[in-house]
């Protein structure tokens, strides 16, 4: 009996001198891993345009049906994203979200990432449906979020998929360029030597037009 007490106290005494595991939240916060999956953030390009093109792929990938999107068309007067399409409405219901990160994997433009944002308590449940304005990073900021922690660095000497664009292969950049030129210039080189782009120009010298 006495031995048992000493045995038990031994553990207590052994732990007494150690630093406690608990932290004094919220004054003190634990460092989080790079791939921590918290609340969603919608990113921008450096020119301020939204990366999101309203393609619904994140909503399609979402196993919890937490994302609701309504898309609309960019106009010259009001350009929200590169290319033709943008998300007019982008709602994430964080009560439904299971923080699996499929949305960021589905995104062709790297527009949505799960960030290290976990302080999400609210008083009213409807406040946990985050709207686009709340999710979007502020104007002037153009981050890639946790994307760099997820995407493996490209191997050296990878051929670029986009002519005129130097750099390593980056799936995001390639598909972003396809859906709306991303932040790349829209002009492309003329494909065939001697082709003026005029459909009535046959390119054959001396031929009657």
């Amino acid at each position: 009996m006495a031995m048992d007490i000493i045995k038990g106290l031994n553990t207590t005494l052994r732990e007494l001198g150690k630093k406690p595991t608990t932290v004094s939240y919220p004054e003190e916060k634990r460092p989080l891993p790079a791939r921590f999956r918290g609340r969603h953030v919608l990113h921008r390009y450096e020119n301020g345009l939204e990366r999101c093109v309203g393609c619904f792929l994140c909503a399609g990938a979402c196993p919890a049906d937490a994302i609701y999107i309504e898309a609309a068309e960019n106009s010259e007067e009001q350009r929200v994203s590169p290319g033709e399409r943008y998300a007019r409405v982008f709602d994430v219901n964080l009560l439904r979200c299971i923080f699996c990160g499929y949305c960021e994997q589905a995104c062709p433009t790297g527009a949505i990432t799960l960030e290290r944002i976990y302080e999400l308590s609210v008083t009213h449940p409807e406040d946990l449906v985050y709207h686009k304005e709340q999710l979007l990073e502020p104007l002037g900021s153009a981050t890639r979020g946790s994307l760099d922690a997820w995407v493996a660095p490209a191997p050296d000497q990878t051929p670029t998929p986009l002519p005129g664009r130097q750099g390593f292969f980056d799936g995001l950049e390639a598909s972003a360029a396809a859906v709306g030129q991303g932040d790349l210039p829209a002009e492309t080189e003329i494909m065939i030597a001697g082709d003026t782009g005029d459909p009535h120009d046959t390119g054959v010298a001396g031929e009657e037009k």
Partner: protein
Amino acid sequence: MAEQPREDLVNLTIDGRPVSVPKGSLIWAAARKLGIEIPIYCYHPKMEPLGACRMCFVAVEKMPKLATACTTVVTEGMVVRTDTPAVKKGRQGTLEFLLINHPLDCPVCDKGGECDLQDFTLRHGPGGSRFDVSKRHFAKPIPVSEQILLDRERCIACQRCARFCQSVAMEDGLAMQERGFRTEVGVDPAAPFDSIFSGNVVEMCPVGALTAKSYRFVSRPWELKKTGSVCGLCSVGCNVRVDVRVDKVLRQYSRPNDDVDDGWLCDRGRWELDAINSQERLRTPLIRKDGLLQPASWDEAMRLVAGRLREIAERDGPGAVGGIGSTHTTNEEAYLFQKLLRAGLGTNNVDHHHGRFPAAAPGAVLPWAWTDSIAGLERASDILILGADPYHRQPIVDLRIRKAIRAGARVHIVTPEPNRLDRLAATVLRYTPGHTGEIARALLNVVTAEGLTRGEFAAQRAATVEARRASVANDTPEQVAETAGIESAALRALARDLAGAEAAVILYDEMATREPSGATLAADLLDLALLTGNFGRPGAGVGPLMEDNNSLGARDMGLLPDTLPGYRLVADQDARAALGAVWGATLVGEPGQTYEEMLGGGVKALYVLGADPARHLADAQLTHLNGFEFLVVQDMFLTETARRADVVLPAVAYTEKDGSFTNTERRVQRVRQAMQPLPGAKADWEILVGVARALGLSWRYLTPAEILSEIGRTVPLYAGASRRALGELGACWPLSPGARTPEGRPTVSGSPFLTWEMFERGVAPSGVSGATGAAGPELAVARGREE
């Protein structure tokens, strides 16, 4: 479809599996029969093969190179393989070429998710590309019509759209321009693309090159809930797939039913769905209090309706209440509505806004319906369009007429206004609006006066032919030419053409019968068809093109003051007794008031279901609407009539309920609920059941299927109808119960065309009909009395 005789079948094997297909079939169709996918872009089953896209490569034994499955006709003993390395390499090569310039903008493309290029690349494609040059870029999107946008980067030049415009719609529109790698789709500015069939090119475009403005960036295919149903806009009843996202109908796609729509759909059916999505729709019952319509609960509204109707019927007799039904509601709802009035309130005052057709006489059943079918048009040698405008009012019938023209039919257009078919017609005649009836009589005059009658029917009835001749003796083409401003010689020639035709179809507009001269239009044209032998076989017939999606169903279901469901006269005691026994009520034998009589103030309480009589009334008559002691309106919107009502009950659209519609070719088809009903509104049948129960009737219908089964038991024309028996494709009445399928599903067999022997039998094959068929069929005017 009938079993093919064995000698017409060709036997071949595909991937080692034997299959027999009719002579002249393509390898693609044979493989499809086996469930083997052969990818296609340029080929479309409803159009001639082209062989342009080179996607459908298959290996055929003893052929040195790969063959295109969409252009190669099967031969006896052919051995086809779709899975050899050569075939796979061929398809991969084609796809790699197609993708050289096709942008990879699938995430923002409206076709993404239902795109043949995506699907086939995934299933048959190489998985990578060796071309790393820049893709072509063009200005986009370019509007090619009011409704359609073109993205030239995405086009793979399959030419489906251009061939549709040219060979199916037979109108100006899209065409291929330029040559070689510069080939693109375009429109000649001098010949704009303004066809009502334009939406079909969006649907058949295998990529996202042609997209619809109304659906632009609205949704993605995987977000849509897709329900097979029937379009509720016009009387053709095209089969559709209703695409709904959350609480909005975004579009309708065609759901091929070769007998009705041949796989096509018009732009109205495809995109004109604003009414269903409207913010103006009623979401709560309204009751007039202190002179204003104010929101009320369903319970309160239904009890008030039942209480007031009962009170007025008891005080002033059942004849003081009446009902105006709708040509838009389902058969089930029309049936319940007249049952409520006939069995619940004891009155025959029930009618709707419809064409003028001679009323039925005892002993003869005269369902004024198209005696042939839409598909039957293809077998006609002559088609007469009299006073109708199918292009705008029944577009898919117009498209079928175009198909008939391609099959060799001659079309005769006799209309007051220019018609879109004029360009393709053999005869084009114009006349002063309002004289359609005189033209019909003039045609009958020529046929009887010149002795052009033919066929067994006319031969057996010399006396009635003579009587008929006398009745139209004064309506010579020369006479009519003066009043109607039509060319008399051409009219004579037309009558001779019809009389000499191998098989002629005569079509007129239901509403043409409402013209001053139209009182006997339906009867005259029926007689014209009977006397010229253009009756009772496919490709020959006569009939009205009805106004609305369920115009015919409303008549069938007895929304008429003088007939019970199935055109049995209310005066017919046996029919009343039989129906009364099922309904548990004693029915009145006195015909009720007509639409005009009721609206003219013939009743004190009026129940208007899904109709807006204010639209059809002159301003002077509108005051009558205010004069009713009690006016109930049941509708989706606060219509002109509803504004004057004492109680307004909010109903739902056809996409929000189950039921059945009967189209203009007598086809009874199932309508299926595609979305949740608008909160606060109820389906018409639900409201009717609620009101009936508030009236103290013991109605126990839980679903429209139960109502349809009752119709199947009590209405001879619809004998055997039930939700399961109608199946996906529907059937044309008169229906009769068929044998059960091996799985135990009941079936029903229809009648694609009516014969005069059917009229002789009273059309009713069985059931409670009181039709005696005593005297056999006589000419319409001899049998019918004018309404």
